[in-house]
């Protein structure tokens, strides 16, 4: 998938930076955990297009997992989960 230059996935966001959710990519069927629709669950937790999010923390080593603020809640995601979320960073 080619992205417009300004767009990125959530896992690439720097600590303290904010962004707006644009799109959630469903996980390919062969990587799905038995019957769990990860994209749907992310949306249920508030990661829906238009929502403001902020990167709070990155774990060490390797910047995994991530702590992300969405709405008034904070969720810990692994990097591959965050990579499903396309965002527009706010500068």
């Amino acid at each position: 998938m080619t992205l417009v230059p300004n767009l990125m996935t959530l896992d690439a966001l720097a600590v303290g930076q904010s962004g707006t959710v644009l799109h959630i990519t469903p996980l390919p069927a062969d990587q799905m955990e038995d019957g769990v629709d990860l994209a749907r669950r992310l949306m249920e937790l508030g990661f829906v297009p238009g929502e403001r999010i902020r990167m709070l923390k990155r774990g060490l080593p390797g910047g995994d997992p991530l702590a992300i603020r969405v709405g008034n809640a904070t969720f810990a995601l692994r990097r591959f989960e965050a990579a499903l979320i396309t965002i527009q960073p706010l500068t």
Partner: protein
Amino acid sequence: MGAVENITGAGLHKPTHQPQIALLGNPNCGKTALFNRLTGSRQKVANYAGVTIERKEGHFTSPAGKPVRVLDLPGAYSLSPTTPDEAITRDVVGGLRPGDPRPDAIICVVDATNLRLNLRLVLEVKRLGLPMLLSLNMTDVAKKRGMLIDTVKLSQELGMPVVETIAVQHDGEKALLAAIDAMLPLPQATPQPLSAIDSVSVEETQREVRRILAAVSNDAADSGNLTEKIDNVVLHPVFGPIILAVLMFLIFQAVFTWAATPMEMITGGVEQLGAILTANMPDGHLKSLLVEGVIGGVGSVLVFLPQILILFFFILSLEDCGYLPRAAFLLDRMMGGVGLSGRAFIPLLSSFACAIPGVMAARTIQNPRDRLVTIMIAPLMTCSARLPVYALIIAAFIPEQQVWGILSLQGLVLFTLYFAGIISAMAVAWVMKRSMGSKTKQALLLELPSYHWPHLRNLAVSLWERAKIFLTRVGTIILTLMIILWFLSTFPGPPDNAIHPPIYYSLAGILGRGLEVIFAPIGFNWQICIALVPGMAAREVAVGALGTVYALSQSGDALASTLEPLIAHSWSMATALSLLAWYVFAPQCLSTLSVVKRETGGWRYPLLMAGYMFALAYGASFITYRVALLLGA
């Protein structure tokens, strides 16, 4: 009671049906605290049929005098489940569980500080067409943060009554009780099938949530709150892991140092009781049964109550204040290295108290393979029942001295034993995950809730529950086993020309000497072998059993309190270390194995677990014993 109601109601109206209300909400919304407020002690905790998911039901009488039954459903983010917990919630509200009738009404409990997340579930459940009530919980915190919510408008928007509640405050449930009364008798509902929740897309529902929020609240800025400031330190890449390690270490130090005084008091009491009986009873079998069997055996287990309560105090406090998910965050990477999710941390930490709640808590892990591996390694976390065994041997063999001036050597050895359990658990997880060869990626998706002070009343209630469970075990299983063991250890009596203590010739002695053939290579004598057998029902019984065995091996008034110097004299250091290594793996806990059978639905995994743990225990003890002998211990 039901019969009386039917008679008085006959001819006037239909037999009264006690309305059943279900509490439903996201995890961390204060639902269970509210349930405790409503029902007080009038609750029944059991399991849902066929699964080991806790089913909490209670009843209360409304201010207008109407009896109401209330069910506390497992926390859920959605009715499209990703965990067995959420599946139960979906099935109960959808009326899909044969044993659990569909609730007559639903009280949706929401966290007022986080409506954006919580309201989505409310809109979803509303599509099922059941009578509903919204309990806006934690309104005190919301007000403190400057969040204003127009409840009248919210009620209009949602089309259901809305009340403010503060579950952690006295009378915080008052408005809810009044609203329940106003709802009764419940209107005739036409419930929709579960598929109704998908009549609107997730995105559309979220848009609706945002529209409602814009209309009813001022949406206070979320930056700069205290939780975030604490997280800046607690989740810090360097300080975070240090804080976690220090915290864990302090807990193990406290388990030893804080408990010392109450333990001495219990020992003193048990000794006095034994002395009184010894002085006032005629010699004979009954005196031996009471003094050596009951008081000697049960007393030596009872003494560990303070240590168990201190351990639970820390685990429950950390859980209550919201630290545990942070620890999972910090450890996710490390757990990921052996193929587990950070989510596995919470069940594994619970396993330090007891593997049974740990195995059950594993159901919050979405991935079935992750869940299975977590269940399989849970018993390697040193449970509180192993603590008595460790404590006894450490006290008898490890000198009481300071290391680097501040740390107690005994605490350090205990920490090492716990650490050995963790390391072997990680190794077993790694091997299991590799042999399963799964290609799917595991999601973490863990909420990091706001911090709050542990609620003392809830903490006290939970600790009391733990004490009750422990004392019940002592009074039932352990007492029974001690009596059986006394009989086995006393009969048949010794021959006239006996050269050994009487127990040597008893049934237990014969059994112990038989087992000694297997266990001699790892340094266990026949007395230890006898203790291992009742230890299968409950690990801490091994200590009580040693108490009984050694009391019977001695003359007359030797009591459990003297067990420590006794084993210090009769065991070599190598035997003591070998037994410690054995208990790191301790494959013998029948209750854990039976819970694993229920959770995994068959004999395959419990048998595999018993097998691999026995092999590890024997191997570790063998190496420990042989190495210790070589080093001259």
